[in-house]
């Protein structure tokens, strides 16, 4: 008896929640987006772009991603649930391309177009990839660093990881640009903090202790950049030039109060928007460009409020 009551309760809770999602969903084209994450502000900005495109083109879009970027199997489960819904096309940002290939083949066989976004998928199955050119973006960060420290001196990098595409590209983009164009700059250390703010703080502090004459530091994603700012604050090295990546409330505040010189921002809203747009085109059999560069910007205290920049920054 009690169990029946529990069940009824559970079912009505479900119905309540479900009703928000399934109303009038059946006649629209359906495009699920399976992302690498969900709760980080960056992914929420991608979702906002996808929702914007959904409203504009009259399609239904859902957005899901695992809690951490390690949960490859959970992402695969999300992808297989998305396939069961017989979508028109799928937006997908693979955590591990290899693990997803069997399902992507299945989608391909069923005539479902795949659009890769963010770091993409290492395979020729996706019809297009909408992402930031991270190499070029990090090279711009290197140019800005050279400008701000006067063309010579020691700098260090705190990067989120050495295995993901974005980690590798941002590191190499920065390092290669320094080698090519800024011979006066010496990169003394590159460390990895998993994008975790606390871990990155400790790493940056250790680097600052080891190199008292360090002039600049580049944090290659939001968590790394915040870590570098924290370390600068805690060690009182007010002359250190800090360059960050992405945005978020803490990073924007650091730029506003001058503890960070500036940062590279991707265009997460654009990534979401372009992915849905390309997915829609591909599902109709239209040609889509293989690589969609969603763009990036340098922003600092002076340009932060420009409408063009403010539109792609998130809290």
């Amino acid at each position: 008896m009690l169990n029946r009551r529990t069940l009824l309760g559970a079912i009505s809770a479900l119905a309540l929640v479900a009703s928000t999602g399934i109303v009038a969903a059946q006649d629209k084209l359906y495009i699920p987006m399976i992302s690498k994450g969900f709760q980080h502000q960056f992914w929420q900005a991608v979702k906002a772009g996808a929702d914007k495109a959904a409203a504009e083109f009259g399609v239904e879009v859902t957005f899901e991603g695992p809690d951490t970027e390690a949960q490859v199997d959970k992402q695969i489960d999300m992808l297989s649930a998305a396939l069961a819904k017989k979508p028109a096309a799928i937006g997908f940002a693979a955590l591990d391309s290899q693990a997803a290939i069997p399902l992507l083949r299945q989608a391909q066989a069923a005539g479902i177009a795949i659009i890769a976004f963010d770091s993409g998928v290492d395979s020729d199955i996706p019809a297009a990839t909408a992402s930031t050119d991270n190499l070029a973006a990090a090279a711009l960060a290197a140019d800005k660093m050279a400008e701000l420290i006067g063309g010579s001196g020691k700098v260090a990098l705190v990067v989120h990881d050495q295995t993901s595409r974005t980690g590798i590209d941002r590191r190499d983009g920065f390092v290669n640009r320094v080698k090519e164009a800024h011979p006066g700059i010496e990169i003394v250390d590159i460390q990895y903090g998993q994008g975790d703010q606390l871990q990155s703080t400790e790493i940056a502090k250790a680097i600052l202790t080891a190199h008292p004459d360090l002039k600049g530091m580049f944090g290659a994603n939001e968590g790394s950049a915040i870590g570098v700012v924290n370390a600068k604050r805690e060690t009182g090295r007010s002359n250190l030039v800090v360059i960050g990546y992405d945005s978020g409330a803490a990073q924007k505040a650091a730029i506003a109060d001058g503890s960070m010189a500036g940062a590279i921002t991707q265009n997460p809203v654009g990534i979401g928007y372009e992915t849905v747009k390309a997915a829609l085109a591909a599902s109709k059999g239209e040609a889509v460009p293989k690589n969609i560069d969603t763009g990036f910007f340098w922003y600092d205290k002076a340009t932060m409020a420009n409408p063009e920049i403010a539109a792609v920054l998130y809290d």
Partner: protein
Amino acid sequence: MTTSPATNGTMQRLKASGAHQKLLAFASLIALLIFFSVASPNFLQTSNIIAILQATSVNGVLAIAATLVIITGGIDLSVGTLMTFTAVMAGVVLTVLGLPLAFGIAAAIAAGTLSGLISGTLVARMKIPPFIATLGMMLILKGLSLVISGTKPIYFNDTPSFPLISTGSIVGSFFPAVPLPNGVVILFVLALTISWVLNRTTLGRYCFALGSNEEAVRLSGVNADGWKTAIYALAGGICGIAGLLIASRLNSAQPALGLGYELDAIAAVVIGGTSLAGGRGSILGTIIGALIMSVLLNGLRILSVAQEWQTVVTGLIIIAAVYADMLRRRRAG
């Protein structure tokens, strides 16, 4: 009329064995299945049901391991990272050392059993509370997985038969209409085996006895510490099987994965009616609990329920299931 005493007797026995309660958990599962089938035409397809079962396989195996330890009145927080550690060990043996498949399977299960033996020794002989001992093991194993793998995934490209452990389908080769993945078959065979161990062997009897009254077990002259250590070791070996399943499904050992999986496993155990206080529980209940979790998650996804709400609903179901179970027990006296 003539059948009524027999029916009564059957009901009594069902209640006594806890089967009655499992029946109700099973009814909840069926109700969920019916609800989602009615709500979406895409839910009840063979491919989606198989996807649900496949999504259950890893959590189900981990939950079986967690059930054993929880019945003794303990808790094992290390099941998730132990799974990852055993997957990495299989990767070392198969990809780094290039040994044949059987060695990789043996390495994963042996590594799991050894780790369980250490946890069991910490808990039973050194009297460290299970929560603390296995919390420590959870972190040690997470760290070791990263160290041994060099923080990079280990792929099994040199062992083409490895992915078949989980994703191949022996059932499908006999019945092409039902391509049930091997991983699911392994889950069910393991569940039957451990169920048998719990209900028909000495180890199983001591497992329940330790959970209901450890002091009485000790006073009756039984080697309580030894049996408890053995149960943790068995649970560890089962985590090794989970490690093989997840690595073979992903065709890689992902060293950073595993944290948080222990909570999913514990959730499946409590939804299935196993008491966290120990002394009471069943593998069948745990499997139903694991199925309820994955049916719920898959169904909510099929209905396009926003992800933040999926999490809320899962939490509600856990609380509702445990509360219903508590009320039932209070009524039963």
